[in-house]
């Protein structure tokens, strides 16, 4: 399995549950397409749940950054939920951890969208 994405609505927040590998090819393309689709449909509050992401490479990191930029530029907010140690370590190494608003609990993450 490469990656599986499932989008659900919690109030006015769109939660994207991501599972599997976000690597160059199918994984990063699927994430890019999902985020583009949501921006196109004017979703303003997006929470990416990465709790089941087993692997992410530099291409996947690039998609997270692109998604963040594109959502922010469209006047929305993109936040991250449930980082595994591997993903957290990568974001810290690349100095991106503080760029993202990262949450551990879904309920508090949902509440944080003002």
């Amino acid at each position, binding site marked *: 399995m490469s990656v599986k994405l499932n989008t659900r609505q919690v109030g006015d927040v769109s939660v994207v549950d991501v599972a599997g590998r976000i690597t*160059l090819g199918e994984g990063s393309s699927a994430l890019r397409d999902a985020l583009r689709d949501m921006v196109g449909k004017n979703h303003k509050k997006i929470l990416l749940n990465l709790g089941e992401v087993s692997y992410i*490479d*530099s*291409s996947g990191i*690039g*998609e997270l950054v692109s998604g963040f930029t594109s959502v922010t530029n469209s006047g929305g907010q993109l936040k991250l939920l449930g980082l595994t140690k591997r993903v957290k370590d*990568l974001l810290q190494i*690349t100095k991106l951890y503080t760029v993202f608003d990262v949450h551990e609990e879904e309920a508090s993450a949902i509440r944080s969208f003002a």
Partner: protein
Amino acid sequence: MAVLRMSNQSRHEAETVERFLDSTLESVDHAEDIAVGLAKRAGFGEDDLTKIGMAVRESMVNAVVHGNRYNANKKVRFSVSKNSESLTVRIADEGEGFDFENLPDPCAGENLFRSSGRGIFLIRSFMDEFQIRRLAPGGLEVVLVKRMVSK
């Protein structure tokens, strides 16, 4: 006890795997699997296996995508070898190369939001040694080394 002795012996035995791989993303997965398998047999721990796997993946992506540009007529020469002290990975493409001496720092403020340019930075972060050189008549070769006792 006999099993333990065999296991230690296997760890210290020198071993090399070499492949000529197609310029495809499947080759990236294949190379990562081979390198991690050999690293596991060498006795590297989980954390190091993850780092080795990612460094090989990033290097293979550079060779397949940026070097050979998915050209079906170009191959990637991949080899990984272990001895009692370290694991060494060599990856060579047949591409036109790039200006690896002037890569922008992906962690600098002006580059932080770029969607690419983090691969070599991650490879350097994960491995103990990283060398890159131009090949004649064309192509680039990278050499990655992970020592059993990391610096």
